[in-house]
């Protein structure tokens, strides 16, 4: 077995190196990468970008217009007199964390269930398909409210992870189904290919066949929708905030900012909405561009 791992190690760098070379040839991908690195840095070390605390707010300084570089409030203040830039920078962490956690967990759950359903068919498939159907049928908002009311008595604390926990649970519950469906469909296609038959005739265990043979070749369509999924989650968080069931104030997130800003968009302070919206759009575009570039770079058919 050790020998095998040696072999694996010598193998991996090659396609990645190739992908990196291909990536560098695309300036849009480079810009996208820069944007993402910027926001990731913001999430990790917000103090690098602003010294103002998002919670020291002077209500008498509410809705100040952007003063740009040099001013006390480069991006102005919101309706509570809080610095928009500070709120924005401190809102990156919950927003991105939420998106990553939701997409990550939903992906694992969806892929696992889709794999099992497509591989075993029969009652497993029946069970998974019915579950998918049930979740497709229950309206997300209804479940969101019910879950919220279930958890409202629980003190979740104020840590970054705690404030996103409820929206995360809700969004995970209702975003795994497409992954399951996609994976199931491509597993159905993959599992009858000869190399799977070959592995089976060798007597390989189901687990080994699924993990080594079926899954790596069946996740393609899923990886293609990941960037958009992340985008969708960030935007959904804003919708949940708008309905009052997202990240809870006073914790901030882009969703909350967009929700609060939308109120003032016609009241002479559009910057409160525009600042987080521009960041959201930039992140999403960056993810999509980067996702596209990565896919092109990794796809052997296109590398030809």
């Amino acid at each position, binding site marked *: 077995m050790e020998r095998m791992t040696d072999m694996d190690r010598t193998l991996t760098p090659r396609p990645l190196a190739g992908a990196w070379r291909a990536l560098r040839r695309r300036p849009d991908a480079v810009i996208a990468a820069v944007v993402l690195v910027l926001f990731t840095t913001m999430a990790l070390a917000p103090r690098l970008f602003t010294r103002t605390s998002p919670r020291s707010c002077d209500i008498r300084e509410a809705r100040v217009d952007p003063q740009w570089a040099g001013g006390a409030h480069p991006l102005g203040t919101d309706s509570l007199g809080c610095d928009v830039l500070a709120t924005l920078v401190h809102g990156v962490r919950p927003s991105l964390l939420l998106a990553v956690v939701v997409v990550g967990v939903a992906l694992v759950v969806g892929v696992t269930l889709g794999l099992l359903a*497509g591989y075993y*068919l029969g009652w497993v*498939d*029946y069970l998974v*398909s*019915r579950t998918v*159907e*049930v979740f*497709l*049928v*229950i*309206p*997300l*908002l*209804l*479940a969101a*409210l*019910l*879950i919220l*009311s*279930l958890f*409202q*008595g629980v003190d979740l604390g104020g840590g970054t992870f705690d404030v996103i926990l409820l929206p995360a649970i809700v969004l995970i519950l209702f975003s795994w189904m497409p992954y399951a469906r996609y994976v199931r469909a491509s597993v*159905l296609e993959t599992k009858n290919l000869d190399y799977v038959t070959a592995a089976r005739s060798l007597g390989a265990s189901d687990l080994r066949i699924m993990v080594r043979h079926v899954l790596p070749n069946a996740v393609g369509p899923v990886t293609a929708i990941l960037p*958009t999924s992340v*985008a*969708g989650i*960030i*935007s959904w968080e*804003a*919708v949940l905030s*708008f*309905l009052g069931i997202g990240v809870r104030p006073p914790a901030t997130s882009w*969703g909350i900012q*967009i*929700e609060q800003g*939308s*109120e003032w*968009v*016609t009241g002479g302070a559009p910057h409160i*909405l525009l600042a987080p*919206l521009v960041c*959201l*759009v930039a992140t*999403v*575009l960056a993810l*999509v561009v980067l996702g596209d570039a990565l896919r092109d770079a990794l796809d052997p058919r296109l590398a030809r």
Partner: protein
Amino acid sequence: MTRYIARRLLQGAGTLLLVMFVLHLLTTVAIQLNGNPAQAFFGDKVATPAQVAAVEERFGLDDPCFDQPGNPCLGPFAERLGQYARGDLGTNLRGREVADIVGAAAPNTLRLFCVVVVTWLALGMVLGSVAARWRGSAGDHGIRLTSVLIDAFPVFVLLIVYRYVVAVPLNRWSKETFGEDSWPPYWFRPSFDPAHPWATVLVPGILLGLAGSAAFIRLVRASQLESYAGEHVRTARSKGLSEPRVVVHHVVRNSSVPVVTAVGLTFAEALGGAVITEGLMNIYGMGGVLWEAVRNDDVGLVLGIVTLLTTVTVLVMIAVDIAYALLDPRIRLGTDD
């Protein structure tokens, strides 16, 4: 085929029952943990136990199981199922017939969804086809970026901006241009008018449809690209068919199947958007009613509405599956794959 439909209907009934049970459990646990929904009846006045009890009794919440966390409350569930079976959807917390509420709210939501679906299909088919036809062109890139932007842009921002920035001036302008009695002022009314439901639901529906169209654009594009790469298109081209003919007969037609399927699947999802649209444009519809019902712990109303919605969604899904099976006989003959 009849057998296939029957089997699918039976499956749908199973799903329906499952959904109802899951929701029943969730609401029951919510009541058990959070205390009595009858309290909500009294708003910010503190009700006496006697008042609460009177309300509880009126609306069937007096079963002791609602006070025992962990009790699945199968009794009230069975009772409710029996009620539904007799065609009685029960009443809400304040004694209004759920059937009446739904009767008033459902048509508006259906109108909204009609406009939404037409918008989805129109935008999806047109933009998706264009993007697929000229894959890799500037137009394709533009359309794909637009679709991502649409995805990232929360619906409510779109609606708020429309309502406060666009609708009022447009409404005034159309009144001056076309006269008070013409249709355009109705299209641009900042909120719904029950007397002219279709005219006033048009723009909100288009906006909501626009917000959800991104997925459709991508779907149409992807499935048409697959068609373009498919054998039958190559064959058709090699037979010397004109390009438009190939596009319309072989590409567009073949790629419409997944699109139709997607319409069925996004039905429940669209309800989320409906809550917001209905709230902002003051449309009395299922989304808004459901939203309020859940916020008020109005168990009877929530379950009644969700049961109806589920039934409709399941029926739509079944209809889509059947359409699919009609188009593709492999599905109904084969096992489940």
